[in-house]
């Protein structure tokens, strides 16, 4: 069987939607719009204040990226205020070395997928906590946290954003949804991606990025996922 026929089969049959399904979808959509308008009316002013606060938290110590004027990360979780960076004094992770973390944060997850750096408030969840319902307790969720992981450049394709040099690496800083990503080109094939969904300033993001050191064997392992070794 040729590839075209196998792709055709993989796509499977498409069952047409019934009139009842369409009517139910429309009904759900209209209810969602009504709900959204109600929430916006009630919470609009409070949200505006929170967004402005977050904007100042980011823009306070440096200019916004040239190609994204006015964009700023919105803090996903309630935060007492801007964070400060401190020297990291805990045990170093397996695949990275880090110099700085926000004060009051710890390494919540450290495995081949990367690091999750989270507030210490979620360090020891009580037995009744369900991480699937409280993502701050889920070590694999990056909401309200800092995530660090390696990616193949080929996977990301072209990335637009502010071009920088961070530490020894060419880097790109760009907003992504409510957060920011700092992509460090740690090899010709591999990015170390730092994703920030916490209220750090631009200067703090760059300082934390400059303090990240990726072990060479980790980079080689990721590069090998292309099917080619680091030396081709």
């Amino acid at each position, binding site marked *: *069987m040729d590839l075209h026929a196998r792709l055709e089969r*993989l796509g*499977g049959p498409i069952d047409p939607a019934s009139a009842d399904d369409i009517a139910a979808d429309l009904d759900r959509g209209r209810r969602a719009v009504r709900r959204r308008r109600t929430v916006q009316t009630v919470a609009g002013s409070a949200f505006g204040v929170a967004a402005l606060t977050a904007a100042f938290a980011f823009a306070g110590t440096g200019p916004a990226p040239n190609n994204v004027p006015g964009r700023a990360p919105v803090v996903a979780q309630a935060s007492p205020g801007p964070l400060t960076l401190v020297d990291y004094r805990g045990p170093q992770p397996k695949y990275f070395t880090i110099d700085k973390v926000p004060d009051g944060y710890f390494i919540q997850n450290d495995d081949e*997928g990367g690091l*999750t750096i989270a507030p210490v408030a979620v360090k020891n969840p009580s037995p009744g906590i369900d991480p699937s319902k409280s993502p701050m307790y889920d070590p694999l969720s*990056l909401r309200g946290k800092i995530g660090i992981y390696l990616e193949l450049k080929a996977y990301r394709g072209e990335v637009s954003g502010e071009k920088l040099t961070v530490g020894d690496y060419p880097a790109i800083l760009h907003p992504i949804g409510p957060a920011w990503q700092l992509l460090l080109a740690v090899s010709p094939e591999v990015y170390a991606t730092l994703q920030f969904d916490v209220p750090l300033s631009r200067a703090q993001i760059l300082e934390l990025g400059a303090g990240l050191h990726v072990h060479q064997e980790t980079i080689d392992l990721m590069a090998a996922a292309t099917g080619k070794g680091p030396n081709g």
Partner: protein
Amino acid sequence: MLHTARLLTAGDAHLAEDLVQTALTKLYVSWSAFRRADNPDGYVRRALVNALTDERKRIWRRFERSVPDLPDQPGGDNAALYDPELAHALRQLPPKMRAAVVFRFFHELDVAETAEALGVSTGTVKSQTARALDKLRATLHTTPQGVK
């Protein structure tokens, strides 16, 4: 559109529906641009590919990790069940590489049309397609007919 989305997601019927919904929403929001597009089909394909790549960038994305046992799969409408071997092979490809295969070998687009859909150069399409076929051959063990 749903058929294409199922292929782009390597047979994940649920994610395919999400992609179609996201792409349709973006088309609706940009309806005037869509109507002015020289190539509406290309516009739709681009919206689907963007939805696929954006899916990886969601803030709530979780790290993927290897597990010893395959998780339970939903039955019925899981398109991967129609050809699990090919679905597995496609899943090993990065999204844009997978999209290049779908557009070149299922929709039979030429290199320029595929490049437009993916938002990359024609040279990138050629290299990505060649690498994709190498990977598919390696994963499928046997050379798929018609993939020379």
